[in-house]
């Protein structure tokens, strides 16, 4: 998937149909439009409320022909069916009324299918190069058994989070509070880590030497460290990098080799050579992560990074590697990288940087980055809370 770079600040959005299609029953159109919005509200906490009359709304929907005031005229039957604006440009959705819009029919152009796609743009999604995704750019026809592709779900949840509110019974519920953070002597003494990754269940794990820790929002979960080999039996110590891909499988890298796991069970005959399974990626990498901006895998080593897309041939394009300095504010020679709550974090020695995947630069915050990993990630109260001196 690909994100355009903007999103709505509120999760409670309003819309109105200010110009209906010719030849369709208005009430039926209303239902189809509501159904198209529900595709996205079904996977997030977004809500969409219809309005009418002259009320201001977030997303205005119009059926128009030819030039219709936005400088992007429609082209008659076929060709372009509709377009929509990303949140930063207002979110409005326009449909070409020259098309023969239909509802629950294999004939004509299916309104629901196109509307659900366009509303993806209204929410901040760009076109996906995954063919099965709703956000693929080409019209696919009516599908009575339509469901969102995992690629679409990953995309919308990267912007607005997972669904937590399942109707009136779920309202007001909060996530389970984290247990009190405990200071870990090993991590507080030397917070430089080997690797960080998220499990498919959403836990954030730190690897260092032969041990691992599970992190809470405040620090380290009780009962850690544990030996890496007690959970991932076949893994060696001193892992270089790890990440969990959107297939739910976790990949570990060390030296020239990698291992693939489903939870704590090795997923086949491993280790394998990085040069075999990740053609184009060098050995002895520093860090790896799946970037929320596009769902693709990024590997870092020294002063360079590589983008790996398993769906592309070749998976690493010829214009890679590129210099890490393209990630504005991120230093060379990182030790680990991880995605956490919509940001990508880079770790180097005892410090970390928060990279904003929407502004494409290290966040401007108080205290500024780099900050102490020990204080902000491992809950070490005696560590420096302020900005650290960047390594030179």
């Amino acid at each position, binding site marked *: 998937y*690909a*994100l*355009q*770079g903007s999103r709505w600040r509120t999760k409670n959005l309003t819309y109105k149909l200010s110009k209906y299609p010719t030849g369709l029953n208005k009430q039926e159109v209303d239902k189809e439009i509501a159904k198209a919005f529900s595709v996205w509200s079904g996977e997030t906490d977004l809500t969409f409320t219809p309005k009418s009359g002259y009320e201001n709304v977030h997303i205005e929907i119009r059926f128009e022909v030819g030039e219709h005031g936005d400088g*992007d005229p*429609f082209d008659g039957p*076929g*060709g*372009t*069916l*509709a*377009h*929509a604006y*990303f949140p930063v440009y207002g979110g409005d959705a326009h449909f070409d009324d020259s*098309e023969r819009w239909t509802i629950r029919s294999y004939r004509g*152009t299916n309104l629901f299918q*196109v509307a659900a*796609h*366009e509303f993806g*743009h209204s929410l901040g999604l*760009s*076109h996906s*190069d995954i*063919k099965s995704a709703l956000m693929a*750019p*080409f*019209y696919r026809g009516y599908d009575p058994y339509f469901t969102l592709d995992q690629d679409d779900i990953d995309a919308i949840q990267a912007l607005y989070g997972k669904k937590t509110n399942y109707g009136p019974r779920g309202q007001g519920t909060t996530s389970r509070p984290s247990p009190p953070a405990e200071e870990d002597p090993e991590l507080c003494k030397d917070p430089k880590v080997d690797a960080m990754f998220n499990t498919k269940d959403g836990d954030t794990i730190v690897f260092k030497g032969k041990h691992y820790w599970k992190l809470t929002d405040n620090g380290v979960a009780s009962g850690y460290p544990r030996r890496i080999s007690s959970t991932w039996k076949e893994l060696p110590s001193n892992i270089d990098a790890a990440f969990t891909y959107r297939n739910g499988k976790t990949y570990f890298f060390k030296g020239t080799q990698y291992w693939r796991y489903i939870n704590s069970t090795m997923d086949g005959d491993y280790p394998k050579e990085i040069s075999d399974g990740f053609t184009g990626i060098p050995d002895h990498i520093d860090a790896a992560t799946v970037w929320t*901006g*596009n769902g693709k895998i990024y590997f870092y080593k020294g002063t360079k990074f590589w983008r790996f897309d398993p*769906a*592309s*041939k070749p998976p690493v394009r010829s214009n890679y590697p590129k210099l890490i300095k*393209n*990630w*504005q504010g991120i230093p060379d020679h990182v030790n680990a990288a991880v995605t956490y709550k919509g940001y990508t974090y880079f770790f180097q020695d005892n410090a970390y940087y928060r990279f904003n995947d929407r502004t*494409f*630069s290290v966040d401007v915050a108080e205290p500024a980055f780099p900050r102490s990993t020990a204080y902000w990630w491992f809950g070490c109260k005696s560590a420096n809370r302020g900005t650290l001196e960047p390594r030179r």
Partner: protein
Amino acid sequence: ATPANLAISDTTAANYLAQYGYLPPTNPENSAFLSSERLTAAIEEFQAFAGINITGELNEETAKLMATPRCGVKDKVGPAADGRSKR
């Protein structure tokens, strides 16, 4: 129904590729400067994005896809669309 003749001219293809973000917008002043290499690269990029064989040529598969109804939003927007972007 599939059109009997799926041939597509360079000009039509260039307009399509410009409309959907694979080439800079064309105008009478700069269209003459579109090199065949740049057009081939844009076709390859389109083919890669669409998941069809990457040949750089306006073959039938590519022409068919260019004739498929689609969304009017550009395929190449956001940080990946412009090599000069901060990432």
